């Protein structure tokens, strides 16, 4: 019966038409608009926050966010010496979260991170940061030695282990960061679109049909779930960046 629902091609789900500058490198579409909003909204919130001794309203929200990043991300992954990375990790957290949350905001209905561009940018930032921190705190040789030649490995196995370590540290880490965020948000987006298309098609058949098969209840439930996923993905992205920074700060294994 539901074969009647024609699922739209994937490009209809994730590719958005240009608002201006089509074909140019500055082509401005919905993804770019969300990226800009992910800058503008935190800026407005932070500027709205008052400087009271007893926080309330927006100030509470802003300080709660800063404290969450400091306590849950930095102190638990790096320790007190990682507090100097608060601006970077807070920016990553905010950018990922506001890029995600537009998935459930009406008229947008699209997470910016369901396109590969923003995750790639953030992963490159994390990659450059943890390599930079490693070189700065251990020196280039020390960093390479500690990340490529783990101690306690038999000499004969060393080339293989080094190759695996190189791939996992310098290639899989940024790749994993980007793909984790991208695939999570794309999967959530496809889920929401699936149930959205289902609901709309059934609504066109008749209002009763939209409510009867619980597709609308699923849509509402999944929307709440995606809000949670947006938050968790922002948390996980900044937490993983912090973990990589902390692994670079001291020789591990």
């Amino acid at each position, binding site marked *: 019966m539901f074969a009647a629902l024609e699922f739209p091609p994937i*490009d209809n789900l994730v590719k*958005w038409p240009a608002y201006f500058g089509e074909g140019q490198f500055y082509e401005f579409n919905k993804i770019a608009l969300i*990226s800009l909003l992910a800058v503008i909204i935190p800026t407005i919130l932070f500027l709205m926050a008052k400087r009271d001794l007893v926080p309330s309203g927006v100030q509470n929200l802003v300080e709660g966010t800063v404290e969450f990043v400091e306590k849950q991300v930095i102190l638990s992954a790096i320790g007190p010496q990682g507090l100097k990375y608060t601006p970077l990790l807070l920016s990553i957290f905010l950018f990922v979260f506001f890029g995600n949350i537009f998935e459930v905001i009406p008229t947008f209905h699209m997470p910016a991170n369901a396109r590969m561009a923003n995750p790639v*940018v953030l992963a490159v930032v994390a990659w450059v940061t943890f390599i930079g921190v490693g070189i700065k705190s251990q020196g280039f040789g020390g960093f390479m030695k500690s990340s490529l030649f783990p101690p306690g490995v038999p000499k004969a196995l060393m080339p293989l282990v080094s190759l695996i370590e190189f791939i996992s540290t310098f290639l899989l880490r940024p790749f994993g960061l980007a793909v984790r965020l991208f695939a999570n948000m794309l999967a959530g987006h496809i889920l929401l679109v699936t149930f959205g298309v289902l609901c709309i098609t059934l609504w066109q058949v008749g209002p009763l049909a939209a409510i009867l098969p619980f597709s609308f209840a699923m849509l509402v439930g999944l929307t709440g779930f995606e809000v949670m996923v947006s938050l968790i993905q922002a948390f996980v992205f900044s937490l993983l960046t912090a973990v990589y920074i902390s692994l670079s700060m001291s020789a591990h294994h």
Partner: protein
Amino acid sequence: MLGIILAVEATEQSNPILPTVPELFWGALSFAALYLLVTFVLLPPVKKTMNDRADRIRADLDAADAARASAGSAAGEVHDQLADVRAEAGSVVDAARAEAEAERAQIIGAAEAEVATLRADADAEIQAARTEALAGVRPQVAELAANAAGRVIGRDLDVTTTQSVVDRFLDSPN
């Protein structure tokens, strides 16, 4: 209605995973802007407020600790003073009790002494009255005895002789 959640149809089928250059450009620009804003404009005042609050709370806590310590020492002082006062009161009471005891002993002694002298006086008086009474009774007893004896033997007896006999009789222990 589907237009709300679906983008307008794309011109050609392309890889849905590879990032496009414009989106990379805008993403990088946006993140750079957000990072610079957070680092130099947005975070410092918030951090300053939070640190001020932490300092304020720490100062308040320190003040409370100091107040508690001073209150504790004052309480100790009061306690010491109380102990002193209590000891002093005890010694005063002890002294008073000892004094009262001594006075009582003295009063009792005086009373006993008076009682003893009174009793001695009374004894002496009784003795004197008895002696006097005996001395008064003796001649009459002698006379009565002489009369009785004369009646018995039929003639008058010399009173003086009788007297000496009576005296001897009376003086002998009963």
